[in-house]
């Protein structure tokens, strides 16, 4: 797996991770670490470009969930209660982490695990940047 990070300006500055290869047991640690570094360097909005990811394992899903937790804020809209109510009613999606163009197999894994219930999945880069 390889990660190329870049910056884009929408209404807010967005960090884009272009991920290439499989997100498996070992690479998921690296993904989490890179996200951690980006957050320490000031990233608040992260778009994960999954268009070149062939496979995501359960460890990869866990890494994405951990990144989601990392970027969650302490605001009332982000409280445990608000998030679980929002997820259940379908009104909550993370304003901080979004996904771009997962391939069908990866999309299937994300949907199966219910990750589409709290993460927006975009198919267009510009629209994704503008949505933050």
């Amino acid at each position, binding site marked *: 797996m390889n990660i190329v990070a870049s910056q884009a300006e929408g209404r807010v500055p967005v960090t884009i991770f272009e991920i290439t290869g499989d997100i498996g047991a070992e690479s998921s640690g690296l993904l989490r670490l890179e996200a951690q570094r980006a957050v320490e360097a000031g990233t608040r909005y992260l778009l994960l470009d999954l268009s070149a990811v062939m*496979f995501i394992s359960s460890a990869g899903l*866990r890494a994405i969930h951990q990144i989601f937790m990392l970027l969650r804020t302490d605001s009332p809209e982000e409280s445990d209660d608000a998030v679980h109510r929002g997820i259940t009613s379908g009104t909550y999606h993370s304003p901080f982490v979004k996904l771009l163009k997962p391939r069908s197999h990866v999309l299937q894994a994300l949907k199966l695990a219910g990750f589409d219930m*709290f993460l927006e999945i975009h198919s267009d880069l510009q629209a994704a940047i503008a949505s933050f």
Partner: protein
Amino acid sequence: MSPESELVEKLTILNHIAGTLNRAVDVHSVLNDALAELVRLMDLETGWISLRKPAGADGSMSNEWALAAHHNLPPALAPDSGDAWVGLCACQELCMAKRLNEAYNEVHCSRLGRAHGDRRGLAVHATTPLRSGDRSLGILNVAAPDWNAFSPQALSLLTNVGSQMGAALERARLYDLVQERRLHQQAALLEFSDRLLRQRDLDELMSYLVAEVIQMLSADSCALLLPGEEPGFLEFRASSGWRIDPGAERRRVPADERTGPGHVMHTRLPMMAEDIMEHDPAPWVPEWLEREGFRGHAVVPLLAEDRSIGVLVVNQRQPRILRDEELSTLQLMANQAAIAIEKARLHSEEVKMQALERELEIGRQIQLSLLPDAPPVVPGWEFAAFYQAAREVGGDFYDFFSLPTQPERQGLVIADVTGKGVPAALFMARAGTMIRSTALTGLSPAAVLGQANDLMLEDRKAELFVTAFYGLLETDSGRLVYANAGHSRPLLLPAGKGACQELPTGGILLGAFQGIELEEGQVDVAPGDLLVFYTDGVSEAMDTQRRFFGEERLRAVIAANAGASAQEVLEAVVDAVSAFSNGAAQSDDLTLCVIRRCPKP
């Protein structure tokens, strides 16, 4: 006698004496012969040699004396005659006072004067020091009854013989010293190799080695370098005598021709520089190495079966070149160490493998202990289940149980923990227990998984997710009520239909969010219908080209076995997955449960 013939005679005598002295390494054993020869050649009566005992290994002499050789002594001077050899004589005192520099005539010999009995008419003797450099090792005395026996020429000859004997004695002393040092070194090397071979801990072994090299060669520092994780670099694995520990600083040396260690790794030959700071061409000395102030430098390869497995570097803060014997000692130590390091490495790999195998075995045991012994037996239904652990156990789990209050309802759980090994197996054990104990209270499937989710999140230590499907089957009616938290959708093959359908209701996996409310789905299973539950170990089984078995193949195998029993379908799927992966190692557990409602007769 002409001066020429006198000279010839003198040289002949000296030559003879030298020949005798050189006959044996141990000069003491030939001193008697040399003395006898001298007495005979100079036409004298008798002679004796007394030596000072050495005071230390540095060659200094004590004031104790011993009779070392004698020839034809008169009865009055016999070695066992008591009085004659007690105490010092005047010539010995002169010698100790450094006043005996050449041969001279001792007219009044104090020892002869003290001696009682037959002196065979001996009146005078000449005495000469046995010298080595400016040290007097002893004295040589010769005696004759004739007052004229010791001409100036004879005395000069004696002086020369004394010097010759002194040199021979000194040579013998040095030889003994070397022998002693060799013996000491050999003993130390034996001890060293013995300890190396007994040492099983690699780090301790290497620390011992560098300390021992410093001791053996009186070097200032020693370091052991082995190829590191990154190719092309040697890493410091042990060092001693450095001002700043290069291992702790994670210093590395490029393993190429520019550096001494790199060069030695490639050529497998030792390398030395008397002074690296004066070396031409200038060697590779980065700033951290320069700070150490090393000058004298030697590198030897660690050779095991003709391969260099690393290098040993010895440094001195003064210019120094190792002598041949020091270099061969160093190489010998390095070779012994190489064998011991290879042995210790194999040992530690073996220990690691054993630990891993043990862990895998524990994981498998935990896993197996959780699974039901046999699928349930319910009239009108067939149940079949299969579980195969990956080499590194994943966290698959399945369970069948009937509710105590509603025996006509059969519960089925299939679940998968993210992660592998013992942690995943332990977490699965907890999660499985949580699901089962909640399910036995009779709550609805969605409520059961919701409660299990919250219990898992309270148990935050593991940070693992679980995908789980829980279904309650009314065996009377065939209705299956279920909830699915992120698990692979089970497949239904209705009787008489050629294609599988998914059980569509899903939801977020367990362990991610507190308080999730899962949707519940239901499906009616008619006689002849088949249900297949599986984990992603089935759909994501890989072939040798890393292609997935996939859901499509799974659906096709199930459809192709329409009408077969639950056990037959199960076996067909397992065979298809096994044929597809064709020996490729599977990274995940493989779990499959098949339920079939028997067709109406």
